[in-house]
């Protein structure tokens, strides 16, 4: 049975028609064309569908849209402000951490959340935070370099001044 729900995505409120079975991933990609969030496995084993909910990385493929009322959702589309990339995004570009790019939105969001929670992560902290984000192209080395670089920048990972 369809119901109407208000979802706050990237600081914009959308009124959506959903069923209980509708996942947040479906709403983002199919209903709202926020296609930066990807579906790869659909079962929680790859991390490609990562979004931030109240700033915390979560899997949109396993989140029911119906349970997202009154929460603030951030997708990769919501990171860029006035055309300016965030330090994490800039570092990914500079370090060559993007090949096919499929894992990248999720990697960037997870790394952003990590650096907000822990601005000086150890190697272990970075690996632990990114363990749920798989990449088939890069072998992870450049991604790690990019995150270390972004951490060094010292600015809040999300915003440029």
């Amino acid at each position, binding site marked *: 049975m369809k119901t109407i729900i208000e979802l706050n995505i990237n600081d914009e409120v959308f009124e959506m028609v959903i069923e209980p079975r509708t996942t947040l991933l479906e709403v983002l990609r199919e209903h709202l064309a926020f296609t930066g969030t990807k579906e790869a496995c659909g079962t929680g084993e790859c991390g490609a569908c990562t979004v931030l909910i109240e700033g915390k990385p979560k899997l949109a493929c396993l*989140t029911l849209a119906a349970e997202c009322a009154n929460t603030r959702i951030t997708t990769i589309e919501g990171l860029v402000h006035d055309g300016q990339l965030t330090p994490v995004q800039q570092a990914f570009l500079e370090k060559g951490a993007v090949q096919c790019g499929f894992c990248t939105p999720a990697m960037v969001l997870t790394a952003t959340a990590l650096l907000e929670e822990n601005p000086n992560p150890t190697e272990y902290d970075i690996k632990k935070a990114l363990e749920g984000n798989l990449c088939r192209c890069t072998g992870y080395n450049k991604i790690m370099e990019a995150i270390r670089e972004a951490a060094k920048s010292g600015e809040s990972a999300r915003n440029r001044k």
Partner: protein
Amino acid sequence: MRLPKFQLLQPKSVEEAADLLTKHEKSTRIMAGGTDILPRMKYGLESPEFVVGLSNLPVRKPRDSDGTLVLDALMTLSDVAQNEIIQKNALVLAEAAHAVGSYQIRNMGTLGGNLCQETRCSYYNQSHGYQFVEPCFKRNGDQCYFIPKGKKCWAILMSDIAPALFSLGASVEVVSNGRLDRTPIDRIYTKDPLHPIDLSKRQLLVAITVPRKSGLCGSAFAKFTVRGGLEFAAINIAVVLQVKEDGLTCSNARISVGAIAAAPIRLEKVESMLAGQKLSRDLFNDAGLMAADEITPIPHHGFSMSYLKVCLRSIARDALALAYSRIACH
């Protein structure tokens, strides 16, 4: 991958949730974080008519009740891993929570949900729509693919939290018929892979209680995996060690091994061997060898029994040494 159709019920209180479970007992499943049940529904392994989603229930902060730590079952695994009270008084539980899944899964999955997770098997946890396959015991069929001529199910409880709670001597608080009952954690597991936890459809797990340990105590959790992350354990172990005032003689050891049966297993022989002994690295080595002899790990997910025994020898030795090194007098 799409979910099947279902009706979502979203109670705002434990009482409302318990009422809904009683009312819709027949085809209802509970959903906390959703990381266990939703993949199974996507694979077509479960299709409940009603899903009772608990995300609107209030989550109480950890509190002390007469020396017992009471933890809300809906605490996320991230919150359990990072909570200072838990780190100070039940470090093995914080470590176990930190070992689960991934950053995302830890932000969604809950303490209670991890305990109530379904048992797993590589032949069961996959989609079955692409070829004609006779259902196994766990799919209400009459055969097993893991043991082809087997007469029973061999699915495994992969929980990291369960062995930690076994070693802590924890209990669970369950609401049923308006009553709140507290049961020791080892009595809530049935050891039956088809029905691993002794909770009826009408019951709701609401809290986990951990008794305070008196005296000098150290604990550690270890999880052996192939990739090092985003993995269920090949085998895991939770150790809680108590020593006498000399800081050297073991007064009590509780060691639980998980991911190798339908419920965690206590290493009672190793525990007895350690009690009263002066602890040392050599002794932990012996304990590891003894552990591998004491239990018969059920092979699973591609790991053979002999491989699991070899893993157990080292994680038992190392977890004991780590738990000992954490005892406050050092």
